[in-house]
């Protein structure tokens, strides 16, 4: 285990990923000449994201590396260069001198300071120190998801005068977002953040997939479990369900018991079915269900419950297609969470639909 792994490398990867989504063509540059592991780590991160990484392991002069990287970026048409500089355990003269040299030598357009919001006021102090000594353009707060108090996020701007530009919101490499003060304030006050949900949905939404489904349904085919799985995975891509709920106005402080585990269970159930069963769920008899329960590590009851709610979804889709959905139904669907209902409730609903 390497405890000296610092935050900038992951953040560099996340940032590159985000910028690429915005149509940029980033190049990551390993500027940590003291730790070979840092170079390796950046290469791994870059490899995962399929973003080019420039490293020169024989060169010890950071300024030279940065300059080489810039030339390569020009020749390879990368329009953004992200320098991942070395970190220290504490702020010391040596580090500052090195960073100043890079600043003078390369003239970066943006200097972003990566700080851990979990450290609270310490993060603010670090930001202030870096800003005084080096001058920064903005702050990237990591682990904002874990900081339940949020003191750092609120104080940084006021104390240093430099804005927070990005915030890391989770461990996955796509969990970084641009920091929007307005939306964040709404979220804190429980007014919800619908804009961010829409953006996230747009980002992850697979238009082709949706078109395929639409065509299929138009052809009068029934929704099958393969489609259901595809939909489920689309929703999952948007991030954890509970974090999405928090952004909906009024839902922020309601402790809804929707765990992402429920999703995982359903995914496991569908994945344990054969292709034939997925296309024709009516095949599922008792012994098949038993097999699936074993395969997915669930109970037969779970499968029964899921199949009930699935059948319901199917018939709802049919009704919607025919366009004669009872307005009361439409209203209900807004609040419905099929997977959370008990079997009796599901039965009742199914009867109503018939």
């Amino acid at each position: 285990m390497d405890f000296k792994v610092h935050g900038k490398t992951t953040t560099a990867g996340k940032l590159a990923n985000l910028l690429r989504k915005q149509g940029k063509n980033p190049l990551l540059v390993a500027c940590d000449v003291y730790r070979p592991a840092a170079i390796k780590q950046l290469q791994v991160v870059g490899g995962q994201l399929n973003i080019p990484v420039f490293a020169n392991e024989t060169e010890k002069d950071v300024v030279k590396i940065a300059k080489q990287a810039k030339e390569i970026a020009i020749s390879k048409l990368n329009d953004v260069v992200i320098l991942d500089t070395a970190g220290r355990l504490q702020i010391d003269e040596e580090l500052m001198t090195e960073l100043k040299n890079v600043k003078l030598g390369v003239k970066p357009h943006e200097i972003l300071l990566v700080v851990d919001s979990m450290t609270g006021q310490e993060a603010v102090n670090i930001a202030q120190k870096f800003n005084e000594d080096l001058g920064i353009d903005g702050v990237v707060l990591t682990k904002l998801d874990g900081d339940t108090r949020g003191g750092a996020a609120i104080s940084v701007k006021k104390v240093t005068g430099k804005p927070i530009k990005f915030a890391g919101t989770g461990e996955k490499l796509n969990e970084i977002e641009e920091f929007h003060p307005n939306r964040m304030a709404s979220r804190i006050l429980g007014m919800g953040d619908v804009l961010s949900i829409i953006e996230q949905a747009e980002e992850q939404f697979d238009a082709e997939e949706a078109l395929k489904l639409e065509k299929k349904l138009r052809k009068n085919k029934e929704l099958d479990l393969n489609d259901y799985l595809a939909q489920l995975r689309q929703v999952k891509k948007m991030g954890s369900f509970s974090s999405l709920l928090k952004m909906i106005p009024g839902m922020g402080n309601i402790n809804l018991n929707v765990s992402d585990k429920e999703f995982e269970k359903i995914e496991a159930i569908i994945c344990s079915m054969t292709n034939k069963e997925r296309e024709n769920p009516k095949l599922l008899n008792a012994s098949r269900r038993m097999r699936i329960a074993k395969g997915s590590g669930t109970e037969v009851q779970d499968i029964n419950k899921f199949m009930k709610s699935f059948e319901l979804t199917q018939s709802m889709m049919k009704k919607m297609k025919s366009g004669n959905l009872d307005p009361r139904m439409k209203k209900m669907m807004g609040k419905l969470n099929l997977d959370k209902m008990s079997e009796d409730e599901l039965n009742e609903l199914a009867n109503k639909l018939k």
Partner: protein
Amino acid sequence: MAFEGLSEKLQAFTRKLRGKARITESDLNDMLREVKLALLEADVNYKVVKEFINNIHDKALGSDVLKSLTPGQQVIKIVKDELVELLGGTDSKIAFTPNPPTVIMLIGLQGSRKDNNSRKTC
């Protein structure tokens, strides 16, 4: 999610305000005291808190909130505006240069994300 503790307190505060038909200055002071404690508990810098509270207090009094028809909503709006201001005001994005490449330099101390990463490298 971030800001849980603070969020809870501020939401309790706004709920209280929403129902009020009339707010007196002492009501306001009492409530602001609670907000102040919530912010301090959230580990917000002391000076920042003080300024924040003073701003809300002045604005709330200055804009005739106490006489307006929906004083609660007014105060909530002021709180939100101030909070936005505190978090940075407008959105700040990266300034890309017209002649690429834009060079972004990431700096920081070690350990900003270390347990996340150590988990990954394990």
